């Protein structure tokens, strides 16, 4: 077992457990913290895939901003442990569980039965550089040439959302001292 393999299996295990935690913790705050853990391990998995920049962005954006928002909202709402974390209905609940299991089973089965995808090219190209600097540069170049339009649209989307969210969550009278 090489270090790479050890790292992967360790991270996969932690990811799985914390993802499970998101779904099963009755207290939403623990769910959220569990999700933070998942985010961090997914960032680590990105790093094992040599996507260092994305790992950093994952940490900053997801773990550092989005999840903080979630945790803050949850704490503000002061939701203590819920008596019933799951929606009622034994039948529909079991159907839903079955569906989730089937989906996972189908994909895992399909993937495992397939031949090794892309096995040949695993050690080449920009993505495999040791530091990830080149991959970051390539990412930037792609983003600002081929995907420039999407990038701009995304910027506009963010602006619209910023305005919309402020309008939606605005409280009467404002928060500032007059």
């Amino acid at each position, binding site marked *: 077992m090489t*270090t790479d393999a050890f790292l992967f299996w360790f991270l996969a295990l932690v990811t799985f457990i914390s993802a499970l935690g998101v779904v099963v913790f009755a207290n939403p*705050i623990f769910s959220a*913290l569990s999700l*933070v853990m998942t985010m*961090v391990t997914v*960032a680590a998995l990105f790093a094992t895939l040599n996507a*260092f*920049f994305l*790992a*950093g*962005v*994952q*940490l*900053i954006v997801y*773990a*550092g*901003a989005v999840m*903080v*928002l979630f*945790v*803050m909202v949850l*704490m*503000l709402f002061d939701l203590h442990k819920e008596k019933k974390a799951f929606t009622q209905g034994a039948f529909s609940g079991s159907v839903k569980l079955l569906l989730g299991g089937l989906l996972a089973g189908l994909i895992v089965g399909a993937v495992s039965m397939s031949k090794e995808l892309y096995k040949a090219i695993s050690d080449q190209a920009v993505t495999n*550089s*040791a*530091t*990830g*600097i080149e991959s*970051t540069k390539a990412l930037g170049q792609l983003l600002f040439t081929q995907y420039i339009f999407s990038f701009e649209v995304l910027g506009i989307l963010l602006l619209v959302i910023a305005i919309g969210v402020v309008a939606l969550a605005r409280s009467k009278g404002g*928060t*500032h*001292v007059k």
Partner: protein
Amino acid sequence: MGSDIVEIGINGIKLVLIFLMMVQAVPILVWVERRGSAFIQNRLGPNRVGPLGLLQLLADAVKFLTKEEFVPAKGVPFLYYMAPIFALVPGAVAFSAIPMATPLLIDRFELFGQMWGPYTILFQGYEIGVGVVFVLGISSLATYSILMAGWGSGNKYSLLGALRASAQIISYELALGLSIVGVLLLNGSFNFGEIIAAQQGPLAFTFIGHTVTVPFLPNWGVFYQPIGALLFLTACFAESNRLPFDLAEGEAELVAGFHVEYGGFKMLLFFIGEYGHMIVGSSMFIALFLGGYHFPFPGITPEVLRYYATELGYGPQGVSIFTALILFLSFFVKLALLLWFFIWVRWTLPRFRYDQLMDLGWKTMLPWALANTIITAIVIQISKI
């Protein structure tokens, strides 16, 4: 990761050393802060225990360790206990990614009847290609310790303090991230090593085909990015929740914010976390704007030092160790001065009001940082003509 057992061992030892360095800096800083504040406020400060009150540190440590352990009745014990530990981790992890001197070269040597080496040991915890992003990402996790503490304490003041603190940290993280984009653009790299290497020697740059050299100034980022440096330093204050940005623990309104319910050793851990933040911020500032471990005198470059060491008769191993130690000294002095600056500011400036704080972050610093980024990009494009 290393390729054999010795290298792994060395790396492990290195991490422990860096962690210890950070932790051990804290008592000293506490003493400096207390003496320094007294000095600034025209008081005496702790001066009874030991010479200059230096043994006060030990007395404090004993006091912290012997205090009563308790869990708030309405708190969440798991979060309550985890919060101080999480306060420590991001600072330590982030600090490890910052290089403090040139690498050490270790010759082949024999141990346990086996030949090992040669090794190149970096003077930092680990080398990461996109170090800047990594440090930013890791330090953004620090919010969670505050939120966990605030929620886990089961106390309104704690929660409010925690929410304030995390909102503040998120807000200022934006300005922080944007303020360094200028430096990143100039260097075209996320790597601390490359950024620091680019800052050695005298101030020299080319602008539209003209090469300008200022022989008496170092080639530091702060001369290229003064606004960026100022914004970064300010945001660092906010990130570490220190005065004038310590709204989260404003005694007058929130008693003591998220650590109302903490005492004893857990409190100490929070202290270490806060100082850890300061250390990480200062190190990053040094690496990005103050030339890293390079001397402020443009004449004294690592090459010059290596040359002297060779003159003194050291071999390659000795030369590298000599150079690294001297450069580490340079880094250490800069760090000490910056930390003193942090303390100095804390005891000089008054506290902001919360809305002023948010206005400063969103309405002043963010636009300035954006403008700085855009202007830098334009100037870089122009200078390439």
